[in-house]
Every structure is written in C-alpha cells, then in structure tokens.
C-alpha cells in the first residue's frame, strides 16, 4: 500500500461553497456541508478501519455517503453495481478478501459482519482513523462468467477533475454512481462547486426525468442511448441544461446533431472513458470521433493505436485486475488496451466498435456500431441495434432492429429508404440483410444497448 494522499472527506471539506450544495436522491437528500463532517454508518465506522469492505446498497445515495465515510478508513472498498447478481457475491467476497459488508438492508453474505448505512447522517465522534490509501474496486461491464474487478485509487479517479473556481453547477446523471461513468460525476459534484441529482433504487428513466427537471439541472450526462430516449420523450421538453455530455457508448453524428438541434446554443460534448482505462479525453467540436492529433500528444493521458485498437497510458487508469486469472491490465509499457476499435479517415479517428463485438460475414468483419451509425443518420430513425444472425452460407449475416421517431409510420417504403442509405454508405456485406421496425430496443442497466455477447 502506497503512502496516503488526500482522502475523499478531506477533498470534500476543501471544496468551495459547501453550505449551498446538496445531493438529491430519490427518497432523501443530503447537504454537503453536513456530509463533510458526518457519518452515515453510526458508530460502526471505526470498526471498519483496515477492512476490505463490500459496499452493497440498494439506494445509490447510501453508496455516496458510505464512500465519504470509508475512503482512507477501509483498506479496500468493493463498489457493487446494482446488477451484480446475488449468486456472485460469495465469489466476489473471496476474490476481494472481504471482511465486512456495508449495506442498507440485511446482510447479503452469510457469516460476514454488516455495518448499516442509514439516514440521518450524524456528526462524526472524534476523528476516524483515515490514513490508508484505500483501494477502490469497481466491476468491469459487459462480460459473462465471474465478475471482473479492477483496482483504482482515489487519486486516479479524480485525476480528470478540474478544481479551479467555477460558477455553481447542478449535475444530473442517468448513470448509476456505482459504475465508472456515474462515479466520475459523483466525484465532480463532491470536489467542485456543484450539486447533484442521482437516480434512486431501480428508478426508471420516466421517474428520474421529472426530478432532474424540478431541480433545474445545468449539466446533464448519459449514454447516447439515454439521450436518444430523452429525445423521444415529450415530457423532457422543460429540460434546459447548459451542458450536455455523452459517454459510455459511441456518440454518432446523428445523436450529436439531434442534441445540438434540440438544445440550441448549448455545448454538446462527448467523453471517452472506461472502467479499466479511466477518463481518456473529451471532444467538444460537435463531431463524432476525435482529431487524430489526440493520439501521441503529451499530457496526463498518452494514447496510441495498435492493431486498430485504442490504448491509453495514464495515472487515471486502474492499476490491475483483482481476479488472479484475469491477466495483466496494462502491457509492458503501461498501456491499457481498451478493445475499442478505431478507423482513421481524413485526419480524424472514428470508433467503429468493440473488438469482441465483431460480426464475421464470410471472413469479412463488421462492427455493429458502424452500421448503426449509418442507420441513425436517417431522419426518421431514433435508434438502432445491429446484430449477427447465424447463416449457413457466410457463418453470420448482419441484421438490424430500428426504432422510429414517434411521428414516423413504419412502412415498407421507409424500410427501403433506410436500406438504400446503408447501401450508399457501406460495402454490401455490412448492409443489413433484414431490417425490422420495433417499438423499443432494450437498454442495459448501465444505459447501453443490450448486445448479445459475440
């Protein structure tokens, strides 16, 4: 364990205008001035000193409170996302050498002591021992089998957060704060002149929306799938953010243009980050992809492209996998291979999809995302999902599901138009062999299109 650096509680205490800032959950809210000097763990905090703690709560607000309590005190915090299966907990506990659970309900792990996180928060009695460089353990997304965990430090997690004085901000995020993207927004809210509206336990998009409208969020962040959904929702009309941010999936030109049109004059930025590699970069020129000169430029994040995939070397990246069988997270030169595949065109890199999401059509590779990006350009299309269908001739073939804008009627002429657009823009093997108009496309708990594991 390395020498201690600033704890989350210290960073929160040092942040500006504490008395005016809050976090709003679905069922309760907490003032940050109080949070900085209080605990939500009752008298249990001191007992967790040096422990490896499984943080498993149903309400994300409690996760936020417990993180402030535990950083610097616990040896390790394992931050469970909401979709982590109960059945996986014993394995997780074994891999992470869990000695205690912090929960807002009954213990999910037999035989392991539980500390209950609850409201109201109460002043911390005495100074809790907070001298550890706590490991922040997060779960990587989208894999089957044993959950994969990566180890971060608070210093790495907050590495991309600018802490110079700024006007007050109210963040809203569709992400769950127990995943990397959402945690970034929580940490921004705790360390800068900001408040935050977060989702409640299992809260639906439709329930969260009126809350962020009521709080007057100024900065709103979600995946492109979240934003497409928002664009389809008439109740979103009163939303008037000053900043719109997308990350977590490829932001294609269609969604960027639709957001720029919907929120005229408001900056629309997309960010690249991953649980493993941390925050990579932001793109604020309104265009999909990113300028080629981002690669190789000096700064806190050094990037290179090898075998078509983006690789990042940065102090913001996780240091290693906790799973012994997961292999090294960084290569010999310290780069994390993101698995995100790039294509260079006219001085700009474009994301074409995930390496392991490739559809193989008779030996020719198709990234579902590149086909979706073309389909999404059609003005009647709100979102699309491209997937493989097994085929006796070519092994697999590309098919597509499409959700239309609410006022567009599904008919054969429209389907033909969308396919004609694909034929103009894509080589024949990438054009969907079948295209189905569907009422909706499933979104995962983390706000991404639900893709079958290739």
């Amino acid at each position: 364990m390395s020498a201690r650096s600033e704890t989350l509680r210290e960073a929160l205490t040092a942040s500006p205008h504490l008395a005016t800032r809050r976090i709003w959950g679905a069922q309760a809210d907490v003032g940050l001035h109080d949070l900085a000097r209080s605990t939500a763990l009752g008298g249990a905090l001191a007992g967790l000193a040096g422990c490896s703690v499984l943080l498993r709560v149903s309400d994300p607000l409690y996760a936020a409170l417990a993180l402030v309590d535990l950083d610097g005190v616990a040896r390790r915090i394992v931050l469970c996302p909401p979709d982590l299966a109960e059945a996986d907990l014993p394995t997780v506990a074994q891999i992470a050498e869990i000695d205690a659970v912090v929960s807002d309900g009954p213990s999910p792990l037999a035989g392991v002591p539980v500390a209950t996180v609850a409201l109201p928060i109460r002043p911390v009695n005495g100074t809790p021992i907070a001298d550890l460089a706590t490991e922040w353990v997060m779960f990587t997304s989208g894999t089957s089998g044993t959950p994969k965990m990566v180890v971060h430090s608070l210093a790495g997690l907050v590495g991309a957060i600018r802490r110079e004085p700024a006007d007050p901000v109210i963040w809203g995020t569709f992400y769950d704060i127990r995943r990397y993207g959402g945690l970034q927004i929580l940490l921004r809210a705790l360390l800068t002149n900001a408040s935050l509206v977060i989702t409640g336990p299992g809260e639906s998009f439709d329930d969260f929306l009126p809350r962020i409208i009521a709080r007057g969020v100024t900065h709103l962040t979600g995946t492109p799938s979240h934003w497409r959904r928002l664009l389809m929702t008439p109740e979103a009309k009163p939303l008037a953010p000053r900043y719109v941010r997308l990350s977590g999936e490829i932001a294609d030109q269609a969604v960027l243009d639709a957001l720029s049109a919907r929120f005229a004059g408001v900056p629309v930025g997309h960010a690249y980050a991953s649980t493993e590699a941390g925050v990579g970069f932001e793109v604020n020129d309104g265009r999909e992809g990113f300028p080629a000169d981002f690669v190789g430029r000096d700064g806190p994040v050094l990037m290179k492209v090898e075998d078509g995939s983006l690789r990042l070397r940065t102090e913001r990246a996780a240091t290693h996998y906790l799973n012994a069988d997961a292999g090294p997270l960084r290569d010999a030169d310290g780069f994390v291979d993101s698995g995100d595949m790039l294509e260079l065109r006219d001085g700009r890199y474009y994301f074409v999809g995930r390496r392991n999401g490739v559809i193989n059509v008779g030996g020719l590779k198709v990234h579902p995302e590149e086909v979706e990006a073309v389909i999404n350009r059609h003005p009647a299309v709100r979102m699309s999902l491209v997937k493989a269908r097994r085929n006796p001739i070519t092994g697999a073939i590309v098919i597509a599901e499409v959700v239309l804008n609410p006022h567009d009627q599904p008919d054969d002429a429209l389907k033909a138009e969308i396919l004609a657009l694909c034929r103009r823009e894509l080589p024949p093997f990438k054009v969907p062999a079948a295209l189905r108009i569907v009422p909706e496309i499933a979104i995962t708990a983390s706000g991404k299109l639900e893709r079958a594991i290739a």
Partner: protein
Amino acid sequence: MTLAMMQRGETPDAQQDSCAAGAAREVILAKFRDVAAAQEKTIVPLTDDLVLLDSGLDSLCFAIIVATLEDELGFDPFTEAEDVYFPVTLGDFIRFYERTL
C-alpha cells in the same frame, strides 16, 4: 413437413404438399430476383439446371437469400439439415426447400 416426419419416412397430405411446394418455388424465384436487384447484380435466366455459381450472384447474395427466405417461409433448411448440403443448381436449391416443407 417437419424434419422428424422426414426421418420417420412420413409424408404429409399430398395435395397440401404440392401446393406449398409450388408456392415455395415462386417465393424462392422472386427472392433471387429481388436480391439480385438490391445487390445490383445481373442474373441469367432462372432455370432449374442453372448452376448457382454461374447465376451472377455471390455468396453474400446467397446468404441474404437464405436469411430472408427464413423470415418468409419460417425455416432455413441448411441449418435444419443434419448433413452438410450444398446445392449445385437452382433446381437443387428449390428442391432442398421443398423437401423440408
């Protein structure tokens, strides 16, 4: 007719079978023309003894034909067949579908 029925040597009602088979032939021929047009391929006249590889269509076209026929007819005889089977002529191709009906 199901694969299980074929394996048991059963035959469904003869008249119904020939109707369905005739319909399948028309659907298949129409599909060849549609896919050729969509893929901008020039095809030669569609006769039963036409060798598929000489038809002007490539393997992607055949893949699309099989995939979209599955949507219209409800099955894909290639995947349902136990043996690997590659039809050589258009007649083979059509019979392969008719046999599985």
